[in-house]
């Protein structure tokens, strides 16, 4: 049985359906990316996995247990970093660490927090407030906070969407390194095809809503370890990349119609 199983997940608001029949599984230590146009319900799926939102239908089972609410087993890196602006970098991370291990003393919390701040390359900035940090540094703190509670699974909601290309590249490299070192299970939303090819082991392609589905699951053929400055020399890189881009540009819209036709054809036949 897979580590994370998502079965028949659907979200509806009244009569309008955001997505439905969403099925997929994630293995332990796997990095899975979801790509899709905005409005297809990617963030809603992530929020349901996090336990912050409830599905209209379907179940999420992680590590043999149904997900029924937020839990320290699942760390979340939010789209807008969501740091508490009145706390310093260290205290933001320590807040999470203290939530995870309430019995720890001050020194233990501090040492553990510092370790993860160093991991994302922010040593020297631990006493700064979020308002004194650049966008990339803020997102790094968000990542450190999520990793610091050592969750069974990490959920990343377009963490690099707001960053410039250079900063994004640097943090992606760091994330590759951290994930390789920690064997962390990750579920990440992105709209960046190159990012998905660099980070993900498998890529879920979502069709355009309303009534979005997971149209295709693409295995990343590029071998690990992947480095940003090397992967584009691999022949399979552009083949896969073209496939993904084709999907986003063309098939994500027509998929729905085909699916609809198939279903009505089936119904007629019965």
């Amino acid at each position, binding site marked *: 049985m897979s580590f994370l199983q998502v079965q028949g997940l659907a979200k509806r608001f009244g009569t309008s359906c955001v997505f439905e029949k969403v099925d997929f599984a994630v293995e332990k230590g796997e990095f899975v990316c979801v790509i899709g146009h905005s409005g297809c319900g990617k963030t809603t799926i992530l929020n349901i996995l*996090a*336990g*912050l939102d409830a599905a209209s239908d379907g179940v999420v089972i992680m590590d043999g247990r149904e997900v029924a609410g*937020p*839990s*320290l087993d*699942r*760390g*979340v890196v*939010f789209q*807008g970093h*969501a740091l*508490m*602006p*009145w*706390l310093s970098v260290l205290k933001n991370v320590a*807040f*999470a660490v203290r*939530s*995870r291990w309430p019995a720890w003393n001050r020194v233990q919390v501090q040492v553990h927090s510092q370790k993860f701040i160093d991991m994302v390359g922010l040593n020297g900035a631990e006493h700064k*407030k*979020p*308002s004194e940090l650049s966008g990339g540094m803020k997102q790094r703190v968000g990542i450190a906070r999520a990793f610091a*509670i050592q969750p069974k699974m990490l959920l990343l909601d377009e963490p690099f969407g707001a960053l410039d290309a250079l900063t994004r590249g640097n943090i992606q490299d760091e994330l590759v390194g951290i994930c390789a070192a920690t064997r962390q299970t990750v579920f990440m939303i992105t709209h960046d095809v190159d990012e998905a090819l660099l980070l993900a082991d498998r890529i879920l392609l979502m069709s355009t809503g309303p009534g979005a589905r997971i149209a295709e699951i693409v295995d990343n053929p590029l071998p690990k370890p992947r480095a940003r400055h090397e992967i584009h020399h691999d022949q399979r890189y552009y083949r896969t990349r073209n496939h993904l881009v084709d999907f986003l540009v063309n098939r994500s819209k027509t998929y729905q119609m085909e699916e609809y036709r198939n279903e009505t054809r089936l119904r007629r036949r019965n």
Partner: protein
Amino acid sequence: MRSRLLAGTLSLLLLGILVGAWHLATLPKGAVAAADSEYAKLVGAQAAVGSKSAFPSPADLGQKLLEHVRDPFYDRGPNDKGIGVQLAYSILRVLLGFSLAALVAIPVGFLIGMSPLVYRALDPFIQVLKPISPLAWMPLALFTLKDSNVSAVFVIFVCSIWPMLINTAFGVASVRREWLNVARTLEVSPVRKAFMVILPAAAPTIMTGMRISVGIAWLVIVAAEMLVGGTGIGYFVWNEWNNLSIANILSGILAIGLVGMALDFFFSRLQKAVTYAE
């Protein structure tokens, strides 16, 4: 730096013009007229005949202020206490009523801000009670509490409660959703969430409410003390009106302004201390 210096100079200039005009307006005049002897006894012979204004000159006021500053804390019976003693009574009443109001308004505001149900249930009461002049409660307070001192504190309590209550509720209700989501994913207990996330997030708005409250309380205490009498700066001003000592009335007014400014400054400092940059 230069613009600050310029502003300071301009302020001094304005003060100079004001005092100068005041001085000219209160200069003794040559006119002689018969005066009522009773009136002359009250305001002084020169003022009664119109050769000198009953209104003190800047120099008179300055002399009076010097007396007050030299000996602010004397106590020669119920009708003759130093201005410092009177101010202390007023400040004590304001702080007492204000603190009691904060103890009620902040927790209740928290509850209202967190629960839309409680908000809707309490809203009609707040809307009706908020616009009532706090002094309108005075007779009721005197009747039920049977003590003028306690009644004055009660009036301060009533007038301080609304801005704090409304601002706390608003601040708590508008805490960013993502911070609450962080707390939820970290399985933070409700008490810890209230103190570690909601309170610091809403603190600037709560402090704004406290600053408005203390300002209103300081306005109301003067009127309240004029009503209940006995002690306090409001009573002092009214008592000096009965004594027809305009210089003392002016001293009282000036003292009220200065203390009000100090209270506001203190709370603006507190507000700055809890404000965070996003």
